[in-house]
């Protein structure tokens, strides 16, 4: 019979079931003193055949990392070749900073087809010593082909106009409701 106690036991069992046995990260990867969080657009589910924006956020626990002082390179290869990536060549995806931000970088890349890819970020200090060199490897799944077409509606919605509509419209609605309350309340107060 399904009692409250049984239900709760089932929930606890499910929570334990969800505890992954081995920690394998996608978002955060660490190397030496560096932690790097990867984000891919759209929604961490990149698509093949279209330009994929890639974002990296850096954290150096020693506090010495600066993007401008880093020879940072990004290599992308099919996951099967993850151990044989040639890190002496130029970047596959050119990393650049966000408007001078020393702890955030982005790049763009076109994944050729749906597949599992290895995305490796290698950083060495330009002066040879300002921070500890690092290498992190992410696995990235590209499940589908993307559509090149960006509809005009989508680009409109990407702007701020929509925010004004939502919040401005909301506040107008609030004012209308307040006025309505006031009209209703008047006969009582008189």
């Amino acid at each position, binding site marked *: 019979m399904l009692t409250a106690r049984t239900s709760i036991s089932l929930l606890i069992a499910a929570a334990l079931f969800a505890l992954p046995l081995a920690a394998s*990260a996608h978002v*955060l990867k660490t190397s030496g003193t560096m932690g790097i969080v990867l984000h891919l657009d759209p*929604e961490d589910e990149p698509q093949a055949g279209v330009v994929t924006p890639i974002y990296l956020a850096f954290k150096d626990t020693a506090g010495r990392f600066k993007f401008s002082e880093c020879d940072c390179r990004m290599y992308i290869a099919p996951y099967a070749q993850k151990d044989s990536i040639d890190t002496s060549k130029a970047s596959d995806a050119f990393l650049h900073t966000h408007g001078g931000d020393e702890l955030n970088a982005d790049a763009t890349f076109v994944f050729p087809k749906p597949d599992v890819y290895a995305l490796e970020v290698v950083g060495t200090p330009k002066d040879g010593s300002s921070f500890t060199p690092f290498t992190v490897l992410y696995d990235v799944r590209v499940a589908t082909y993307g559509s090149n077409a960006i509809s005009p509606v989508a680009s409109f919605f990407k702007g701020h106009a929509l925010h004004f509509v939502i919040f401005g419209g909301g506040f107008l609605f609030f004012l209308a409701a307040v006025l309505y309350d006031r009209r209703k309340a008047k006969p009582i107060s008189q």
Partner: protein
Amino acid sequence: MITPKRALITASFLVSIAIALFEHASVPLSSQFYLDLTQYYGFISLALLYLVLLPGPFYRLFPNAPFSIAHRAYLSGLGISTFYFALLHSTVAFWGLLEGFAGIPYLPGPYFWAMIFGFLALLILAALAGTSFDYMRIKLGKNWKRLHRTVYAGAFLVVAHTAMAGSHFQSLGAFIPTFWMVIFFALVLMHAILLNRLLSAKYPQYSWLFFPVIIALVILFGLFILNFLHTYAHGAHQH
């Protein structure tokens, strides 16, 4: 006996297992498996939280709407399910995506704060789920209601956490964030109308516009904080 509460809790359990099994079958790759699970459980928890928060203001504004009494039987089950999915979301994200405790020092600032907000919200949801039984309701008496009002603080933390760390919330103009913004803002406005009614009835000596202006300023301040946190987490590079 199958009560609405037990039915909801059991359904949550079965859904969570079904999602995990489905994802495991379709995404054998471990990191993407954790990422997908984190997103699914997070979204379900957010949706359930909304369902918990909605009836209160909605039925006070529209007392004659359908299910105004019947919905009450489901609230505590919804609350427990919200916590359950939030716990799964946190567990999978923490151990699967963020390298567990070892990863904490390596988290870049915005992600660290997003995680702290999420953790605080989880604590609140845990306290609420843990006291959502009749026994605790009677034992806590007046304090039960006070405790359960912290759900609003929890909701604000959840919204901040989502705006900062949600994979789908990087660009706020897309459909999913727009949808959530609209429905959460509708909830805030319902509370604003009710609060204005309460305050203007209690303090009739003030101008009729006094409280609406104050409430609007408080809401704007909240939006400003959320926008600040979102920009802090994602940079001003995208819209």
